[in-house]
């Protein structure tokens, strides 16, 4: 029953995020601030992880190609497929559930604990719209981050494969272009949009409806990460079934 109640509360929160909007000029400033906090602030870690994990994917693939009949171009092919289909959209989103998600939960949760949300409500402001809506809008730029992750992941794979002596440049590049289906890029960005929505709303829910003090803010951040990651994995499974199988 508790789970059903929470799910209902979550959907009501989403509805309330879109009603009784905050003044346009204020909302615009809030959206820019969220873009800075959630998107720009994540670029460094996303770039770092993408480059090195892309490299590891290439090395792992190369080390497992023991059969001399298998072409070296397979390294480029495997790197492209794994980075574009799963690593960039899904793996990075799970990492972002930790970075962005815990930031959202703890910042809103602290506002709850210190009565700042009550202060907004007393002033007649729709606090859910004020706090959650700018995050949803800002996270709509999130696929841009995933685009960068895809690019850097493949660059990392190329660097590791070519400069590590696992495959010649021509073989890697031809493997990368082999059997390329643009629909797979659409699939990756489509699910990224869904993940972006989950990344903005599930942590916001955990922060907004938390009760207690500083200790509970920490607990809410943890459970927000767990539930966001679970939701991302489930949605990933469903979207993959619907679009690719």
């Amino acid at each position, binding site marked *: 029953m508790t789970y059903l109640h929470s799910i209902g509360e979550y959907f009501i929160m989403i509805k309330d995020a879109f009603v*009784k909007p905050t003044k346009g000029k204020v909302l615009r400033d809030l959206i820019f601030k969220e873009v800075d906090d959630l998107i720009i602030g994540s670029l460094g870690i996303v770039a770092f992880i993408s480059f090195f994990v892309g490299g590891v994917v290439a090395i792992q693939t190369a080390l497992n190609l023991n059969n001399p009949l298998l072409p070296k171009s397979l390294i480029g092919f495997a790197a492209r497929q794994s980075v574009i289909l799963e690593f960039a959209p899904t793996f990075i989103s799970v990492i972002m559930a930790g970075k962005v998600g815990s930031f959202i939960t703890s910042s809103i949760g602290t506002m709850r604990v210190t*009565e*700042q949300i009550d202060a907004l409500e007393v*002033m007649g402001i729709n606090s859910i719209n004020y706090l959650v809506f700018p995050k949803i809008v800002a996270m709509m730029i999130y696929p841009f981050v995933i685009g960068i992750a895809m690019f850097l992941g493949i660059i990392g794979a190329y660097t590791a494969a070519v400069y590590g002596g696992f495959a010649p440049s021509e073989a890697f590049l031809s493997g990368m272009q082999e059997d390329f289906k643009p629909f797979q890029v659409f699939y990756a960005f489509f699910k990224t949009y869904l993940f972006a929505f989950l990344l903005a709303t599930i942590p916001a829910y955990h922060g907004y409806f938390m009760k207690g003090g500083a200790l509970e803010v920490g607990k809410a951040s943890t459970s927000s990460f767990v539930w966001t990651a679970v939701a991302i994995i489930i949605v990933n499974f469903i979207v993959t079934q619907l679009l690719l199988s």
Partner: protein
Amino acid sequence: MIEVKEIRKGFGDVEVLKGFSTTFQKGQTNLIIGQSGSGKTVFLKTMLGLHKPDSGQIIYDGTPYSNLDEEDQRDLREQIGMVFQGSALFDSMTVEENIAFPLKMFTKMKKSERIERANVVIDRVNLENANHKLPSEISGGMQKRVAIARAIVNNPKYLFCDEPNSGLDPNTATIIDNLIREITIEYDITTIINTHDMNSVMEIGDHIVYLQKGHLAWEGDKTQIFKTDNEDVTNFVYSSNLFKMVREAQLSKNSI
């Protein structure tokens, strides 16, 4: 003026406010006192519209709150200033931005006009050299002044304060109490303060409501509270050693 009529509010099986009526007059400092768990905070939040009463009415200058639609309730809330127990200042904003926030949300003032108005109330609450500091960079007493300044910046008709001097030293607490009282008279607003600080009662208690277990057990002013026969009120008032000593001194003086 705010009228409270037979207000009741419960959570699950527990009835917190058990049906009472009172009136809070304009231009007075109205104090709600009572022990912890007596229903003070629930009463305050119910008056503010943060809790919906189970029955009864809160009437703001002749207009029952429950009769207002959502839009009108929001308009009414714009006329309410609130000072929270922990000040509830927005961490990410400077003192000046915190104070100008209600103006930014509810008026069409230009930025320069908002800053000008914010500085008027900053001067009024005697805040010095804090305009560009963050709330975390100023003392608890200064945070309370910022909270008061934010509450009055939009010229509210009603001012609510929840434990405005909790966590402050006695001297600063008295300054904050007096500031609230001066503002109440100067702006001619209806001020309601939730407190269990007897010093506040002695300083600014124009009208005092004593709550006990969700009932209104007594009401009067600061002179009457020390003469009442109500045993519960007497026990509450004289629970402090200081007040016990004052009372004993008074009794011995009377007997001479």
